């Protein structure tokens, strides 16, 4: 008999359906993945099951839970409260905001036990026990900590402990690892699998990351526009997808090998020697020194003209800092940076014109990097205008030309950024970067905010433009697969240090540094995941 059975579930906002006639069931101890692109209704499905839909949304259909005769959707708030936290557990995506910032972690954990009947002492003791179980270092100390004193991964462990505290029948995880680094992500996934296996808890695992699903789950549901379009065992769905949409998802997740471009250029266009960047944080104690964050430590490297140079590393490893230094948007604490032979770190911003003309940037967030108050024409023309490169008429012509080059209709020029989709916005951003005909294009995580299918399109576009305009590209990402697909050289950053540098294939196949090896091992890929399930 199923532990959780959902049938004909729909969620409506006014008259529009966000979730449309969704049915599925979870067997005891089974882990089921729910995938689909952003906005496809994954979270709404989960929240409807929990009875936690945002105000103004209505759910219809039926949700049955083992041991509960009634349809959960018809239960009163009071009855539902008794099930939440005891029989139904849930882990949310953002571990910082999901915890009460003004309450100690131990109290928050104990609360879920107290609500469902434990005594104060029992709850406090069990809280420490649970934190030990999710392998939080120093559990006894952690109970007294506030959420902001824990790292993201640690907070997510607390959330998991909370969800599992009362041995639920069903655990719903809504993108529990997408805010975390790959190495941390691997550990959390492992924890979820282990803990639920021990208790024989069924898991509904929501994510948009296919390799993650392949690693964790036995069965998978594919959602698109509020409906489930395909379902079945992971092995079969991922190897022999039936629905075209599933195929699209899979294509985007399994990149082809990079076409290693054979540039034999030698002269370095960007050259860093002994570069360190230290940030100072505000003083914490009265007499102590101001704490320092050493974001980059003694980095030496050079980027040759025509190279596609990748930079990888986990969050906080100093990737963005490096990019900002190369682009002359920040100054190193120590060391020197040359661009085309000229030192840039010693020059004031107003004398960096040569750099601005030859080096342009594309940023991570396609919405955040476009001024919402500007028309697309003004955005794309901004480098031209501020570098006083062209007259008014030329500007219009150039903008039209650029928009065509990145595959946008020319009438886009008169619209505002919010009238475009994420992928289109990133195209605008790229058009802007190409406007002054730069020699170097620096891209800081240009695709990590995009959905997989769109991501593939943008990467393709970038590759094409780099070839067409003969650009040097510096490409930053935390996603190793992406870098591997795009770049011919790769630098690995760890904690501000350059731990490895070499041709991409070499680094991937014969990593030298232990950290690189760890990184590569942690990356879930579809092939690996399927391989471990015995599928080829």
């Amino acid at each position, binding site marked *: 008999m199923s532990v959780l059975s959902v049938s004909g579930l729909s969620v409506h906002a006014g008259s529009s359906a966000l979730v449309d006639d969704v049915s599925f069931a979870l067997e005891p101890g089974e882990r089921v993945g729910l995938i689909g692109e952003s906005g496809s209704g994954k979270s709404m499905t989960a929240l409807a099951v929990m009875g936690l839909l945002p105000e103004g949304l209505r759910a219809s259909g039926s949700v049955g839970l083992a041991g509960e005769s009634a349809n959960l959707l018809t239960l009163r708030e009071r009855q539902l409260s008794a099930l*939440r936290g005891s029989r139904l557990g849930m882990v949310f995506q953002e571990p910082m905001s999901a915890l009460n910032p*003004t309450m100690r972690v131990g109290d928050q954990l104990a609360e*879920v036990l107290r609500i469902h009947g434990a005594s104060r002492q029992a709850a406090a003791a069990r809280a420490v026990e649970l934190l030990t179980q999710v392998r939080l270092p120093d559990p006894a100390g952690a109970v007294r900590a506030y959420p*902001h004193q824990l790292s993201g991964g640690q907070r997510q462990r607390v959330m998991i402990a909370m*969800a599992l505290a009362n041995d639920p029948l069903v655990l719903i995880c809504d993108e529990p690892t997408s805010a975390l680094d790959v190495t941390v992500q691997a550990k959390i996934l492992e924890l979820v699998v282990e803990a639920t296996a021990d208790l024989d808890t069924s898991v509904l695992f929501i994510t948009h990351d296919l390799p993650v699903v392949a690693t964790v789950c036995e069965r998978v549901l594919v959602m698109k526009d509020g409906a489930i379009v395909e379902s079945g065992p992971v092995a079969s769905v991922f190897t022999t997808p039936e629905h075209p949409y599933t195929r699209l998802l899979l294509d985007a997740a399994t990149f082809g090998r990079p076409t290693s471009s054979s540039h034999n250029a030698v002269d370095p266009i960007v050259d860093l020697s002994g570069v360190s960047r230290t940030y100072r944080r505000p003083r914490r104690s009265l007499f102590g020194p101001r704490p320092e964050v050493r974001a980059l430590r003694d980095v030496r490297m050079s980027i040759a003209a025509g190279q596609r140079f990748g930079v990888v590393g986990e969050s906080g490893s100093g990737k963005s800092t490096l990019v900002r230094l190369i682009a002359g948007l920040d100054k190193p604490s120590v060391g020197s940076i040359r661009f085309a032979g000229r030192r840039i770190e010693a020059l004031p911003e107003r004398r960096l014109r040569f750099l601005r003309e030859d080096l342009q940037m594309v940023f991570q967030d396609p919405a955040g990097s476009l001024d919402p108050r500007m028309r697309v024409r003004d955005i794309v023309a901004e480098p031209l205008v501020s570098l006083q490169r062209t007259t008014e008429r030329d500007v219009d012509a150039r903008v039209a030309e650029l928009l065509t080059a990145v595959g946008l209709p020319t009438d886009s020029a008169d619209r505002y950024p919010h009238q475009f989709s994420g992928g289109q916005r990133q195209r605008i951003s790229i058009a802007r970067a190409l406007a002054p005909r730069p020699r170097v294009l620096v891209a800081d995580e240009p695709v990590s905010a995009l959905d997989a299918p769109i991501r593939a399109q943008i990467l393709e576009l970038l590759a094409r433009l780099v070839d067409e305009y003969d650009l040097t590209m510096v490409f930053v990402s935390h996603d190793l697969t992406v870098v591997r697909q795009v770049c011919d050289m790769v630098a690995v950053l760890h904690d501000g240090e350059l731990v490895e540098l070499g041709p991409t294939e070499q680094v991937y196949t014969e990593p030298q540094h232990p950290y690189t090896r760890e990184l590569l091992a942690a990356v879930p890929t579809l092939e690996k995941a399927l391989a471990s399930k015995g599928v080829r």
Partner: protein
Amino acid sequence: MVLRLLKRTAVFVASIAAATIVVFAFMAVLPGDPAEVALGVNATPEAVAALRAEFGTDRPPVVQYLDWVGSLVTGDFGISYVTRDLIGPQVVDRLLVTLWLVVTSMVLAVLIAVPVGTVMAVRHRGLSGLALSALSQLGIAVPAFLAGILAVAFFAVRLGWLPSGGWTPPNQDPVSFVQHLILPAAALGIAQAAVLARYVRTAVLDVLREDYLRTARAKGLTPYRALLRHGLRNAAIPVSTVLGLQLATLLVGAIVVERVFVIPGLGSLLLDGVANRDLLLVQGVVMVLVVAVLLVNYLVDVLYTALDPRLRTS
């Protein structure tokens, strides 16, 4: 946290120092020579000169300033040009009256605003929320003195329930004290309650949208208990800032309400001082008001630190 407090304290002290300069400079350009005003019509130049010497207003401004700051520090505030009396004790006397008024109306405002604001937030789409919202908008739109005038006309003159004005110190006759306090405190407090209720509403609405409230419900708390256990403390953080700013508004609002209700508080002292060109007195009262505002904001910041562990332990 200690560092944060020390820093904040330093800023507080520096602000007071800067305020003394501003106030003194301001009063220095006030037209009307205090000696001339004290002597009145047709004073002889000699008499005026003699009185200037007596007041010390013939000395260089810097000396006068230092002298004044010194008197602030010792708490005597100097000797009034008009009453020839120490200003300090007078100011303290009046401040006590104003504080009763302000604190009572603040308490009244909080007692009304917190439940009303919470209901407005929780039922923000419902009829009761809308009705309360409209009421609070009206409360904000009616100036406190108008409310005061109407209250006097109705409750005092027409119905004769309460005195139309005046003041009795609490130690003299507690019953009469309360009777005299009710109308002015209500006039002042209700308008503030309306403003505060809107901030409470916003804060609670914000909190209601927070993920941790959803987490709390996922744990099995009912929405109401979740709000009580996890929401209110977090909502109190932004509200406490507003409370501080409001206390400042109240202090100044009291000036007008004291006029309506003939209450011998700081406001009437200030207005008398301005009319009589009692410069030192005006300086003293303005300083007291300014320091009160600065102090309240300082305390709110400290409270903030206490409420928010992120600030306490970072």
